[in-house]
């Protein structure tokens, strides 16, 4: 088990706003890694820096032993980092199956001539996409929705489809931005079971989440951000006992510092 993602003093400034300020952390492969923090703490910005959608103002990001600070999202995705978005970014008008098939894009090899002449490569590609897309949907228990338009599905299912779509890219690390947001208790539990199953099969996952029960229950290690700064990193038991974390979440009132939540 090695280190899959490491950041060194990563900063992201938007003008005077320090959205992410000097964050260093590392994710071990095989873990479920949680990132928590109050609203506006810079969690999503941090994710965007890690996946290449933002370039860090300062600092470096290492993925699988390579410096990816200057790489494009598509290059980083090709290296094996998949992500989902806080607001689901599905191809809304396409069917669920087509959505997932597009996720297979990177593992297909056919070029222009293959497509025009329907060569063996083309046929192998089509078969591969169809097969692995169905397979992935089945594993997530979504095969009944395969031919539905993605945009017509309920929010919770859309989120799950997005996860499945990023899974077929066969990532080394899966970044999930608030996967349980907007889900009810039952959906959250089924999502958690699904993620734990993936993790047992060896999938490394990093996720941002607000649902504390969810994070504390399934994450091996947690990073806490507040106002762009790292305030704590460690296993759930350490994080929950940390004074600074409590202050960030509950405030430090003058009534003996006791949290009232």
């Amino acid at each position, binding site marked *: 088990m090695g280190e899959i993602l490491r950041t060194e003093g990563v900063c992201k400034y938007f003008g005077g706003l320090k959205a992410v300020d000097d964050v260093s952390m590392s994710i071990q492969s095989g873990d479920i890694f949680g990132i928590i923090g109050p609203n506006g703490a810079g969690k999503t910005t941090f994710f965007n820096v890690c996946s290449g959608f933002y370039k860090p103002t300062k600092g470096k990001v290492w993925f699988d032993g390579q410096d990816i600070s200057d790489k494009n999202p598509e290059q980083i995705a090709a290296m094996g980092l998949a992500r989902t978005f806080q607001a689901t970014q599905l191809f809304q008008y396409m069917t669920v199956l*087509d959505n997932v098939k597009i996720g297979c894009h990177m593992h297909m090899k056919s070029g222009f001539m293959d497509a025009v002449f329907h060569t063996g490569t083309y046929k192998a590609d089509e078969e591969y996409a169809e097969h692995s897309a169905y397979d992935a949907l089945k594993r997530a228990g979504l095969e009944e929705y395969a031919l539905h338009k993605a945009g017509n599905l309920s929010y919770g299912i859309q989120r799950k489809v997005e996860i499945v779509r990023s899974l077929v890219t066969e990532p080394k690390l899966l970044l999930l931005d608030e996967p349980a947001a907007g889900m009810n208790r039952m959906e959250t539990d089924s999502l958690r079971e699904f993620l734990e199953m993936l993790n047992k099969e060896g999938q490394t996952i990093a996720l941002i989440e607000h649902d504390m029960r969810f994070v504390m229950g399934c994450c091996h290690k947690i990073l806490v951000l507040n106002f762009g700064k790292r305030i704590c990193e460690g296993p759930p038991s350490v994080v929950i006992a940390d004074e600074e974390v409590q202050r960030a979440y509950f405030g430090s009132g003058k009534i003996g510092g006791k949290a009232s939540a």
Partner: protein
Amino acid sequence: MRAALLCRLLLYSILAGSLNITNGYSGQTSLGHAAFYCVGAYTVAILTAKCGWSFWLALPLSAVGAILLAVLVSIPTVKLKGIYFSIVTLGMSEIVRIIALNWNSLTGGSLGIKNIPRPRLFGLVFDHPLKFYYLFLIVSVLFLFVSYRVIHSRIGNAWMSIRENELAARSLGIRTRIYKMGNFAYGALWAGLAGGIYAAYMQYIDSAVFSLEEGFNILSMVIIGGQGTLIGPLIGDLAVNGLTELLRSIGEWRFVMYGILIIVMMWFRPQGLAGASDSILAGKKIMKRRTVTEKKKE
């Protein structure tokens, strides 16, 4: 006369079809398709009339010329989104036309290029519109066939994923810049070919043919007929050229008709008559309507 009309229909089926590849499949709205048409036509005209090349050697080069222009324009614009890309293509169209108008030594300036030789193939001289009709038909069918296969492949899926949601496409490792560039160049290729045949067909070209107006004429076929389907531009081609014939009596007023038609179309059916209704082109309206009817059924 009838053969000439058929030639025109087929010429525009290639032009509108290739513009639809860019506008309808990758979601980049190009307004400068006439530029590629122009480059293709001038390539054949110059190489055959001035350099004495065979038409059959010049024709592939008309496609190459158009592709080169597309790539050249793509390099700086591939990062641009939406309207900004459109504005650059608009500029490109005018720049190409103005160069054709003013580079007297190469393009004959405002006089254009006359006496473009008729193509010959094994003793067969293309001296009648009917013969060109077959040539246009072959290229048009070839365009539809190749495009159909490309669209139903990994490449076409990548184009459509960019149209539907570029952010998601990038997160899935689709190299959007390369695909957008490839898409633009692929559309240009066919417009260049169409231009090349057009030059040999007319035997005379001048820059006035390749104006912005012509570009908008092609665009109106795509918008009215439908974007994002291969059949759409064909219907637009028939509709616009058919109306042009029918409304000849009202003269310039027919352009007002086109304008109104486009506005009405954008309002009620933004994807066009036969456009892809299961795409972002159709707008949110369609999606909502469909969800409601589906729920009613349940």
